[in-house]
């Protein structure tokens, strides 16, 4: 069991998402940066879909109540065990009474905490991913006691430290495909999407990232149609909205671009003010 002493800015339990329920209007959810989440489970030899904690911007403080192995991936938030700095992307052995806490954010925006066996929370519609209205809670709170799936080897000894690809956090390129309404933009507008710089605004959440810059256009609203994580919508007032993992299943704004799967993970690690460019995926 792990006790939450401090929850951090926004910490939630996620796995790889809730598939097969979109026709009922249920969002996919799941880890925003699925690459980093899967890495944390892989280092512990967990099931790829084992539930992990997704930490946003500032880390939680967790009291460990048993011997187990853990692994932290994604953003580097200066993790410590009992105030001793530990490494990201490395298997950590913890014991009863240990306290995992975090400090300064060095790079990225979302960190993942995996524990040997995975977190054991309620499974709703085949997934543990938290989402308001589907699961009882939508994030973890101070005082919560997080259960762990019991596994045969709760201690997974490994000295491997993975050398991660820093480009995942540093790249300024977001790879995209043309969206269904891309062709309705004028040639100059089409070019503009790939030559202008864009940046993440303060309106960013697990549902969507609104971009700071406005993009003049005269596109007509569409008959409500289907959208998914990575869809870039363009509103009549010129806002570009990149839908993320918790997005609705349908929308009425023109869909001008669609992010490549790997670029959704990359964007999930950017924060307010981060600049980037759209480039054509190949």
């Amino acid at each position, binding site marked *: 069991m792990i006790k939450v002493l401090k929850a951090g800015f926004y910490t939630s339990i996620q796995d790889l998402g809730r*598939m*097969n*329920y*979109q*026709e*009922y*209007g*249920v*969002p996919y959810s799941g880890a925003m940066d699925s690459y980093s989440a899967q890495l944390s489970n892989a280092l512990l030899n967990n099931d790829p879909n084992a539930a992990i904690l997704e930490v946003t911007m500032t880390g939680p403080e967790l009291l460990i109540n048993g011997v187990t192995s853990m692994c932290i991936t994604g953003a580097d938030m200066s993790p410590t065990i009992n105030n001793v700095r530990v490494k990201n992307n490395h298997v950590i052995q913890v014991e009863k009474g240990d306290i995992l806490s975090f400090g300064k954010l060095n790079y990225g925006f979302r960190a993942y905490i995996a524990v040997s066996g995975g977190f054991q929370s309620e499974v*709703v*519609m085949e997934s543990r991913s938290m989402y308001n*209205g*589907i699961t009882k809670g939508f994030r973890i709170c101070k005082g919560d006691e997080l259960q762990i799936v019991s596994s045969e080897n709760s201690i997974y000894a490994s000295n491997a430290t993975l050398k991660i690809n820093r480009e995942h956090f540093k790249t300024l390129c977001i790879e995209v*495909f043309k*969206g*269904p309404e891309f062709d309705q933009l004028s040639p100059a507008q089409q070019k503009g999407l790939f030559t202008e710089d864009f940046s993440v605004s303060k309106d960013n959440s697990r549902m969507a990232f609104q971009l700071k810059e406005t993009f003049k256009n005269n596109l007509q609203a*569409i*008959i*409500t*149609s*289907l959208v*998914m994580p*990575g*869809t870039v919508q363009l509103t009549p007032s010129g806002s570009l909205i990149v839908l993320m993992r918790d997005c*609705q*299943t*349908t929308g009425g704004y023109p869909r001008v671009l*669609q*992010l*490549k*799967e790997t670029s959704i993970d990359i964007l999930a690690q950017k924060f307010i003010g981060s600049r980037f460019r759209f480039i054509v*995926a190949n």
Partner: protein
Amino acid sequence: MGDFKLKYKGFGDRSILIEWPSEIDESTLNDVLYFKNKIEKHNIKEIVDIKSAYNSILISYNYTIGNVYSEIMTLKTLYSERVSPNNCVYKQWRIPVCYDGGFALDLEDISVQSKLSKTEIIALHSTSLYTVYFIGFLPGFLYLGGLDERLYFPRKSSPRLNVKKGAVAIGGTQTGVYPNESPGGWNIIGNSPISFFNVSKKVPCFAKPGDKIQFYAVSKLEYDNIKALVDAGVFQIESEVIDD
């Protein structure tokens, strides 16, 4: 069936979008649902999910599509294969709604501006037969077609932060029921005690695209009684299977 001119587009690296002409009508809906059903039956194992909206189908695959054109050719062939015209079998659901003042926050407003009495508005709203086009916006939110033109009413200029679960509302040319508490900009005219989304069920929504919904007015007392039965999990929604 199978007579529409469809557009097929790769959508990202894992999905294909199929679009019908930009119309909201039942012949489009029936063709969308017919094709969706055919794709599901064809059982392409790489497909993760298929969902539909007014005039579109989105097919998502569980990995990057290697050759979009060959996938699209498979789908085109499937669409062109004629089968004997299939009957439309759907369910018609009767949904209780309490239009009393305590729930109907915007009924007065609509009445003043539309110059229809509250009784007329309730009668118009509860006599139409609505078609379920698809589920979206929120888990369990049914997009319904068939609102009487006299009840068209623009969305509120600033949305409410908290619309109650079960709120029955009108937004522009559409009507719908909020399946859960949420922010919302539609005009609220009543509340239904029925649960439109049930997380504990394998199939969380009772209605599906192609079904019909009819609302009927109930008093606050009847509302409370039904609500108690719904909460206890023993209320049976009246429904009828229609085969035409």
